[in-house]
């Protein structure tokens, strides 16, 4: 599990929680996969273990991970109940950027929508689902 921590504003526990959610939503962390123990991740990221504990607690509350008694912390089996919401959130950011760029290029949203459908039609069949 590769995470990247910055200290430019967003609290570190939130960065960890958000990145784990992203990794789950994008399929890079699979259901049932174990996340590193608190001390190991604290050491790896050079951050306070209490911060990692707080991030894991947030993830547990959100249903993204489960603690198994006496063993460790794992990605939830049923996938995260938030996964779809998170996936849409990731996509929303891309859509916002696309809309902003379209506005600069004087392309109306209706026209953009038409373009998205056209590009979708033009995709090779295995990706065209």
């Amino acid at each position: 599990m590769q995470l990247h921590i910055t200290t430019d504003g967003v609290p570190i526990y939130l960065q960890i929680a958000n990145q784990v959610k992203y990794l789950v939503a994008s399929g890079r962390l699979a259901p049932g996969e174990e996340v590193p123990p608190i001390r190991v991740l604290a050491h790896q990221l050079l951050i306070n273990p209490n911060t990692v504990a707080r991030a894991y607690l947030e993830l547990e509350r959100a249903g993204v991970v489960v603690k198994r008694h006496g063993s460790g912390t794992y990605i939830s089996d049923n996938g995260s109940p938030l996964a779809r919401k998170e996936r849409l959130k990731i996509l929303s950011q891309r859509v916002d950027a696309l809309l902003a760029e379209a506005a600069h290029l004087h392309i109306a949203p209706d026209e953009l929508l038409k373009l998205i459908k056209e590009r979708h039609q033009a995709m090779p069949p295995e990706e065209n689902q």
Partner: protein
Amino acid sequence: MNASDTPPVIEISGLSRKFGQKLALNNVSLTIPRGRVFGLVGENGAGKTTLIKHILGLLRAESGSVRVFGFDPVADPVAVLGRIGHLSENRDLPPWMRVDELLRYTQAFYPKWDRAFAEELRKQFGLDPAAKIKNLSRGENAKAGLLIALAFRPELLLLDEPSSGLDPVVRRDILEAIIRTVAEEGRTVFFSSHLLEEVERVADDIAMMFAGKVVLTGTLDDIKDSHHRLVLRFESPQSAAPKIPGVLSLAGSGREWTAICNGNRPEVIAAVARAGGKVVAEDTASLDEIFVARAGAKAAGKE
């Protein structure tokens, strides 16, 4: 790691200290709970080292009181110093000793010295046992000092500007030592630093000092939660920073300005509107921005 129900490791109340006419510490009160990492931040000359010297009993409290593990460190140094691993700012190790001599010499003072752990750290830090202290590089000297502070597994690790002037590799060793110490149940770390990026990574609690005074203290989470960075956009370009009550600092030019404020968002947003602007973006402030805003506000006499 949650030990809020046990008595604090350090308790300082109403501590003041004068050097000649200069008030080095001005009514400082701090509580350092057990099992946490406490970061003391401030510019050079803010009083951090003077405060640490009081904790070690090297300076007597002129007014106010200092208690470490419940004892007065000046009256009862034996009860205090044997439980503190200390790395001083100027790394005053005896220059004529070899590394192995330094370890044997220091070991004699601490009944709880862990030889296996000391040897593990020596190897990890890459220190040659036959090397003379005076021939060590700046980084090696810091690592030797850190080794003897850690090797008896002290209840309190007290580090004065541990990363100052060191390269990133040695700074990493120091941060690892802090994390390892606190991960072992019940141990406490108190460190001073002007590298706020490091403080933000490892501290549970912080105190900010400015000109001898503690201007802000609390858990890092609470401080981060209560400070906001607002990007303001004004209808017309502003030639000087607009006056907005409740804002700690304001930087920018023309139409766009960045404000750091504390807790009072609704009032600040209303004040911005009265000044002919609006908030266009909002974020959590970094510890660095909070410190600069606080120190700046303090220097300008706004608080």
